[in-house]
């Protein structure tokens, strides 16, 4: 087993309500550095809930979670923000690009927030990533004027800008046609091959089949 980058122990999550519903039941999970893991399962099985919990966006749970050797359970909201900024890249079903900004600016914003590199260095790195994803020709375009496939590729570029320890994706191909789905698949495999750690929720068995490990969930438990 490779060194773990993410370790979750005995995670429980309840959705509040008149009859609290337990969506995650005693999840214990370890992800090794460089692994490409997909989480699959029927809708409502808790796979997305697990992803948001592991990504530190959702802090309302029981159990403990460590990422990159840092125990993130119980950290403050602003500490978690800084942590996500540095260690986690996000790709969602929807691209969530900021419409007022150009492609390049959208990619640069998380790195500017981190503030580790100079603006010029960030711009250079953003251009390199765009080139790698073969979309450097649209760098100066407003992000609102792109096709769906292009937007999703820009979103992936944005997730990579801070060289995160782990990339988390929630149905990254859910909104795409078959051609773009294939392109995004290929990008993920290429990223995995380059040594990135990827955790993706998907309902696409073809996508999952090409990952290192599949975690199948049912009724809030890992099967």
């Amino acid at each position, binding site marked *: 087993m490779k060194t773990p980058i993410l370790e979750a122990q005995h995670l429980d999550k309840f959705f509040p309500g008149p009859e609290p519903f337990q969506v995650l039941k005693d999840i214990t999970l370890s992800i090794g550095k460089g692994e490409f893991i997909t989480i699959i399962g029927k809708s409502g099985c808790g796979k997305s809930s697990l992803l948001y919990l592991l990504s530190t*966006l959702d802090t309302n749970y029981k159990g403990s979670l460590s990422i990159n050797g840092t125990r993130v359970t119980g950290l403050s909201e602003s500490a978690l*923000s800084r942590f*996500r900024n540095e260690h986690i890249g996000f790709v969602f079903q929807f691209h969530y690009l900021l419409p*007022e900004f150009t492609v390049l600016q959208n990619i640069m914003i*998380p790195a500017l927030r981190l503030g580790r590199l100079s603006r010029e260095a960030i711009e250079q790195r953003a251009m390199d990533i765009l080139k790698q994803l073969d979309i450097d020709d649209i760098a100066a375009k407003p992000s609102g004027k792109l096709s769906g496939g292009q937007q999703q590729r820009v979103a992936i570029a944005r997730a990579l800008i801070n060289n995160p320890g782990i990339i988390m994706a929630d149905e990254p191909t859910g909104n795409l046609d078959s051609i773009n789905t294939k392109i995004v698949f290929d990008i993920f495999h290429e990223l995995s091959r380059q040594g990135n750690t990827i955790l993706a929720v998907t309902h696409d068995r073809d996508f999952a089949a090409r990952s290192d490990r599949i975690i199948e969930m049912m009724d809030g438990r890992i099967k």
Partner: protein
Amino acid sequence: MKLPVNFMISGTELLARKKQSVIAMLGVMFGIAMFIFMISFMKGVNKFIEDMMLAAIPDIHIYNDIRTDYTHSVTEAWLHQDSSKIVVVHHPRPSKIRLNLKDPGRIIADLKTTPEVAVVSPLSSTQVFFNYGPVQLNGMLDGVDIYAEDRVFNLTEKMVSGHPEDLLTTDKGILLGQGLADKLNVVKGDLITLASPTGTVMRFRVAGTFSFGMSAIDNIKAYTTQAGVQQLLGKDRDYITDIRIRLHDLSQAKATAILLGRKYGYKSEDWETTNPSIKTGNMIRDTLTWVVSITLLTVAGFGIYNIMNMVITSKMKDIAILKAQGFSGRDILTIFLSQSLVIGILGAVFGLGLGYALSYGMSRVPFPQGEITSLKYFPVVFDTRYYLLGAAFGILTTFVAGVMPARKAGRVDPVAILRS
């Protein structure tokens, strides 16, 4: 350009929706412009009224008030102040009224050595009837030292015809209020007849006419020498009824008046007490200005609140992704609050400019000419303090209006948005 990323995002978004930003800014701008305009104009009116009133009343007026307690005249005469008896006098009839000041020479000499006092003008005043042909008018005749009176009221500037000194060069000269002269239909050089309350009749020659710009004075007042009034009333040369005083510092009037009243034992009134309407009027106009200004700024504040709320509702997705990518609630708050503040500061700057332009425009509008001839343009005061105050208020309003939506944005739960 090395701008923190929060402000880069804030600025780009603000520019992306220029129309909304400009409308919100216009709200603040008009609010502050109206505040500046109203307060400059109202303060101008206050100052004008104060100046006009003060030009017609002395800072302190010392006189012998008619006392309503006449019991002592009875007790002294009949009971010789026997302390063992309690005397109750019902509804006594006034007797022996003295209107003049006792030993005025001593009081005047003492006043002249009082450091707060600038000018002392003693006078003997009486009610008279002015007769010219069949016209008979009631009025007040002040026998004055015309040089002192000139220094108290700046009479030289108020003369319509003749000069104050003409009173001394004319035999039994008299200066008439312009309104009075018009009603009597007399001009400089005419002879008029005056009748005193005691029935004495004397002829005076009109040496000039003056106007204070207030009909209450111009229609009833006339000046002659002290000797003229003393002669008309059949009194001696010590007969002085009033002393008018100008001070070096107007704000000392109240305290000094109390002091002098206690010292001499006569009624001593300062200008505020004589004319409470000045203070009342000032207060009412000030209150009105504040109420209207605060209302306008509050409305502008609601405009900003509304627009920022709308913006934040439409930006939920962007807020969620920024939070996912590592922007904290504080960062989000900074982004949206800085947008409100930019709107507020720009609105304040333009508002001050517009306010100044409106005030300046008002100060160039000719005032309708009529009774008050001394006013050529609408009165406006230009004071930097009001501009600083306006800017501070505008920015404070936008801050308060911007904080609530920005806090809401900072508290957005990204999971709720991103999952859907």
